[in-house]
């Protein structure tokens, strides 16, 4: 049955080349746009080197203080707060404290390099899965002694050392010399919590540790033993925050800080004013935008499909006369349409791969390595099917209602 449907679908596609082209163009471009957006989304929020086990990771990046009278300030938390309260949480397996990256200048061979530097502890390297190309990370000892050692990314290595030896060499950054101990694969800039060009021990900034305010320039990365522990960690964190708020010398100040996944934190900042988690709302909005975007191509496809199917009213009449029920007819046209959509999907995949390659090459996003991985592929396939169903069901339904007698006459109504 399926084989027969596909056979006839194929024949119709070949016979009406112009209509086929219109449909395939619409489908493949719509899917291409959706796939590129999905890839960008996945690149920003999905598991990605070095944040691979996203379901076991939480990030703390905002401390929000709200005083009486509505005055509000928010920004990254301080080292003091993270070290004293977050480091001591009991549920997590591991906690890393690291600085927000800052851009500093370096001069190499009369050329200026703007490098993003990040100060981290030893746990940072245990929690995250960096791809070490050479050498290894700095450990507890180097951090304890505030050694001037650095892990650099591939790009910085190329700029500084070219093809020569890098490990063990000195690198001058912002008038300070560091010894290179490791080289890692470039981390995309969208991974705000892990990204940098050069990573050095956090203890080199120990003068900032004295600041006992709650706000500063640090992030925390929390690793759970297993994904199931995440709610427990959030709970413990919330209790801890209540305690911090109670002990806060400035009375009447409401404090908000949450351990979030990347997407949760994005939704909270964008939609929840930094207080409420609005992940659900974010999903609703994203779905809405997607549907809105798909609306026009879908209407277009419905129009084309109606014309295309109308042409075959005689076929519908014959099929009905020889025993096809209305549902069978709907089934046939939906299958045909899904088949067409899948072909369009194939083109769409090729196009998206091309566009993603172009985005990567254009260096619009530093160190972006957008690709169509299996997850994006699965999403694309799902989108294909939804698209095929939406644009196929209405015309099929309309045509199946056609009376066999009229259909045989030519189906003008």
């Amino acid at each position, binding site marked *: 049955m399926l084989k027969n449907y596909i056979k006839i679908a194929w024949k119709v596609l070949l016979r009406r080349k112009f209509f086929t082209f219109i449909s395939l163009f619409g489908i493949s471009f*719509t899917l291409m746009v959706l796939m590129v957006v999905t890839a960008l989304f996945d690149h920003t929020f999905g598991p990605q080197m070095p944040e691979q086990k996203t379901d076991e990771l939480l990030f703390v990046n905002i401390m929000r203080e709200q005083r009486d009278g509505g005055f509000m300030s928010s920004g990254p938390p301080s080292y003091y707060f993270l070290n004293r309260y977050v480091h001591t949480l009991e549920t997590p397996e591991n906690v890393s404290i690291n600085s927000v990256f800052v851009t500093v200048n370096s*001069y190499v061979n009369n050329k200026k390099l703007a490098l993003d530097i990040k100060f981290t502890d030893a746990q940072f390297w245990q929690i995250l899965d960096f791809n070490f190309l050479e050498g290894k990370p700095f450990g507890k000892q180097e951090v304890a002694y505030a050694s001037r050692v650095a892990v650099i990314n591939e790009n910085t290595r190329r700029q500084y050392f070219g093809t020569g030896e890098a490990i063990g060499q000195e690198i001058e950054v912002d008038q300070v010399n560091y010894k290179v101990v490791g080289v890692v694969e470039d981390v995309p800039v969208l991974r705000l919590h892990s990204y940098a060009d050069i990573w050095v021990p956090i203890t080199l900034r120990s003068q900032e540790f004295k600041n006992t305010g709650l706000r500063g320039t640090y992030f925390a990365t929390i690793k759970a033993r297993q994904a199931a522990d995440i709610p427990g960690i959030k709970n413990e964190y919330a209790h801890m925050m209540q305690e911090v708020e109670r002990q806060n010398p400035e009375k009447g100040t409401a404090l908000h800080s949450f351990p979030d996944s990347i997407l949760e934190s994005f939704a909270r900042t964008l939609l929840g004013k930094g207080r409420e988690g609005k992940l659900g709302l974010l999903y609703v909005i994203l779905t809405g935008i997607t549907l809105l975007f798909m609306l*026009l191509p879908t209407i277009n*496809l419905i*129009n084309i499909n109606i*014309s295309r199917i109308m042409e075959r009213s005689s076929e519908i009449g014959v099929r009905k006369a020889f025993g096809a029920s209305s549902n069978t007819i709907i089934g046939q046209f939906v299958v045909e349409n899904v088949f067409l959509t899948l072909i369009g999907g194939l083109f769409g995949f090729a196009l998206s791969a091309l566009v993603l390659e172009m985005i990567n090459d254009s260096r619009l996003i530093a160190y972006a390595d957008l690709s169509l991985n299996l997850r994006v592929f699965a999403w694309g396939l799902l989108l294909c099917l939804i698209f095929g169903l939406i644009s196929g069901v209405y015309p099929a339904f309309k045509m199946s209602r056609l009376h066999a007698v009229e259909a045989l006459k030519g189906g003008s109504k």
Partner: protein
Amino acid sequence: MWNRKKSNFLLITEIFFSFLVLFGVMSLVIYNYLNYTKPLGYDYENVWHISLRPNSDSTAQNRLVQEQLLQRIRGFQQVEAASYSNSNVPFAFSQMGMSLSYGNAKDVQTNAFDAQDDLKDVLRLQVREGRWFGPQDDASTHKPVVINGMLKQKLFGEEDALGKLIPVDDSTHYKVVGVMDYYRAYSEYDADAPAYFSRINLQENNNHLWGSLLLRVKPGTGVAFEEKMMKELSGIAKDWTMEVATLETMRQSKVRLTLVPMIALGLVCGFLIFNVALGLFGVLWYNINKRTSEIGLRRAMGATAGQIYKQFLGEILVVTTFGLLLGCFFAGQFPLLGVFELSPEVYVTAILIAVALIYILVISCALYPSRQAAAIHPATALHEE
């Protein structure tokens, strides 16, 4: 054509949504374009920006370093002028605002900038009325400010602004000493918003450290000087984190921030519209093929090819007009309700352009099929039936 309601309904919906998409994108493009054509009010070429982050706790120490830094920078022969500023320098990502009131003008949201006397030379600012800051302001009782044209209009309308006192709080007043035409600091695509400069007096503002330093260098000064300068400066300000960037590179990243989403949106919109055009063409073509017998009959009854041609174009134009009327009704709500606070001018132009584009699109899609319809011979058409 009235009994083909359903297929026309789909066409109308399609035109309606196409119009809305075009209208939205056009509004954005026109808004940005109109802003882009306005003057910035300053000259960013050969201007460098140094951001400063002190790392020591001692305020007295930091203040000393701050003064030494400025002196050293002015000492370089490649530097024409230098001035401290808040971190909201041109094309920066940080912004500062203030709400000002004067008379009936209440709570005008205004961008606030701080400048030393030398900033006029660094950014080559043009003062239209009055004067820029000078040493004579050291002794003034009120804080002197220079305002831009938009703020003058918002606060004082047609009145003369010079010498007016703007209340800030119970004890402080700003005194307007100068008016400049434009100052649009954040991006070339930003709207002309109210803005004012207040004067930095390093002797007076005792405990404040300025986060940014702007300097104008002689044309052709390059990285070699930058490295030399930074080496010397970090000798003065040990442990400080300093970062240099040219305003030109900062401008480019700002431009990218506006242009990249706009181009992406434009491409997506262009694709959607092209898609619709192809679909429209296909549907019209199909419809005309299906109506060959009707055309044959009309021809047999004496209609000329030209009349057939006009009839088909006319039919599709009526359908299009329905879709557009519906679209204009919705789009018309934007200027009426003042959504997004864009000027009605932007919306109206966007509506007009979108309407024109849709008509052009529809006509070009209908031209070929209609010509085909007109070319049908009555005999063959009737024979087919």
